[in-house]
């Protein structure tokens, strides 16, 4: 039976999550050098266009149609059979297409997150091919495992409310793999590469925080108490993490920074994502604080020590955040908050943490293997990285023949 309130809420949440992709574009865009801003914006918008179509053509079917434990069937390809009546197994009170398009926005932003790893040095043609293959062979299967009807992790009882595994772990792990394979940017070791427009980064991050309300609360798929508890947990984690990072900077680096407060907030949001609909508000605060600490450590200490160029910290923030958050969901989940969830370690059920760990391990292993293969295939076919001369001139001029900014009019 279609509920108007639920449908309205899910559609608006869909809009909020859609806005996260342009938000991400500016969040990342401000962090690169001025000669590469358009490259970032172009890649993000291309994901909106390409993945929206892929999702309708076969992505939705592979992710959510009943099939095997590993992958969905193709009976919903071309949205065949995806009508306006509800599909009860997923969302009994909203039209099936509302569920489909809400999930589409998750499928769009996940490959966009990986952009942070290879920013400023990936060919646009290779990016399109890589992202399309990645969405089909990594995102669609793992989405099916966790959220699809009959998915093996779903059957095992994994808790992933809005995409700790499906979105952040997969994208974050793909990020570290591609960053290592594509190699460091020219001059990375001995040259400062500061963000060219931190106001953009802050604005983008703010849009992400706003959109995340749709990402997490919308995943309740109904305008009910569950959505509210996810909403409150989302904000609580963002706030705690946003405060924690500058405090860590104050202690470790001397001054708190805007780059820090916005990175911290995003880290908190990413980490609370899998737990958001299963926890109390103050559990979210703890998760947020832990997120900032873990990501701060990865980005500020581990990354310089190992010298890899995960340029915009897609692994350091989303990868680490997604993994940590999925595990913490197994610690803090409470069936008192959400009866459809489960209890975690702190509520007397250590088995849940084990299930979370299995899920994370499987997602990491699969993502590493398949991302590696896809990268190698595309690299052999058309080459992934721009030439050294193109990298020096900049992505905007060489891949798009445009300049982001004029100087003399």
């Amino acid at each position: 039976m279609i509920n108007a309130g639920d449908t309205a809420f899910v559609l608006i949440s869909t809009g909020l999550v859609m806005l996260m992709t342009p938000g991400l574009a500016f969040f990342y865009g401000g962090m690169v050098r001025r000669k590469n801003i358009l490259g970032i914006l172009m890649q993000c918008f291309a994901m909106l266009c390409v993945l929206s179509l892929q999702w309708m053509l076969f992505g939705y079917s592979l992710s959510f149609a009943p099939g095997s434990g590993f992958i969905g069937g193709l009976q919903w390809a071309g949205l065949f059979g995806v009508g306006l009546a509800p599909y009860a197994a997923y969302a009994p009170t909203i039209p099936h297409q509302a569920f489909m398009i809400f999930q589409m926005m998750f499928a769009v932003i996940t490959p966009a997150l990986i952009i942070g790893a290879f920013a400023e040095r990936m060919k646009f043609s290779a990016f399109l091919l890589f992202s399309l293959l990645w969405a089909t062979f990594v995102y669609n299967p793992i989405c099916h495992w966790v959220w699809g009807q009959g998915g093996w992790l779903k059957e095992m009882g994994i808790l992933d409310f809005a995409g700790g595994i499906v979105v952040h772990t997969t994208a974050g792990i793909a990020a570290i793999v591609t960053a290592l394979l594509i190699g460091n940017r020219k001059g990375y070791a001995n040259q400062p590469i500061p963000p060219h427009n931190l106001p953009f980064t802050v604005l983008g991050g703010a849009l992400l925080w706003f959109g995340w309300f749709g990402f997490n609360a919308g995943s309740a798929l109904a305008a009910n108490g569950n959505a509210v508890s996810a909403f409150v947990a989302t904000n609580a984690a963002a706030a705690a993490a946003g405060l924690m990072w500058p405090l860590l900077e104050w202690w470790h680096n001397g001054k708190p920074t805007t780059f820090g407060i916005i990175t911290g907030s995003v880290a908190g949001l990413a980490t609370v994502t899998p737990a958001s609909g299963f926890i109390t508000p103050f559990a979210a605060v703890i998760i947020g604080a832990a997120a900032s600490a873990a990501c701060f450590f990865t980005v500020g200490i581990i990354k310089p020590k190992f010298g890899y160029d995960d340029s915009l910290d897609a692994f350091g923030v989303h990868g680490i955040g997604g993994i940590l958050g999925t595990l913490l969901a197994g610690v803090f989940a409470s069936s008192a908050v959400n009866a459809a969830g489960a209890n975690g370690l702190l509520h007397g059920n250590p088995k849940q943490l084990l299930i979370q760990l299995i899920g994370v391990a499987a997602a990491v292993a699969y993502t590493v293997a398949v991302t590696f293969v896809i990268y190698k295939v595309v690299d052999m076919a058309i080459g992934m990285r721009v030439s050294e001369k193109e990298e020096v001139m900049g992505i905007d001029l060489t891949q798009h023949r445009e300049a982001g900014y004029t100087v003399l009019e």
Partner: protein
Amino acid sequence: MKLITAIIQPYKLEDVKAELYKAEVNLITVSEVLGHGRQMGVTEVYRGVKESGNLLRKVQIDIAVNENFVKPTIDAIIKGARTGDVGDGKIFVTDLHECIRIRTGETGSIAIG
């Protein structure tokens, strides 16, 4: 006294600075400029319309030096900036009439160093 003006590739600035510090040239002014050489810059396209002869971003370095520092400075800049590719840049050397340190009012060679 001479004023040395160098136009270099922006990504070479750190290498040039490192070479200058090694040559004990520690005074420097850097600005962002636009320009192109005989290759006539790049072509940009906006909604299908091509615009050619567009200027490329460069970095300009200005250093005032005493006579004995002219060659070391030029050598350092070349060492830091040369890649062998088109676009390495140019160095101009002009006569400097006067140099004054604002804080103390010193003039001439003492003010430069």
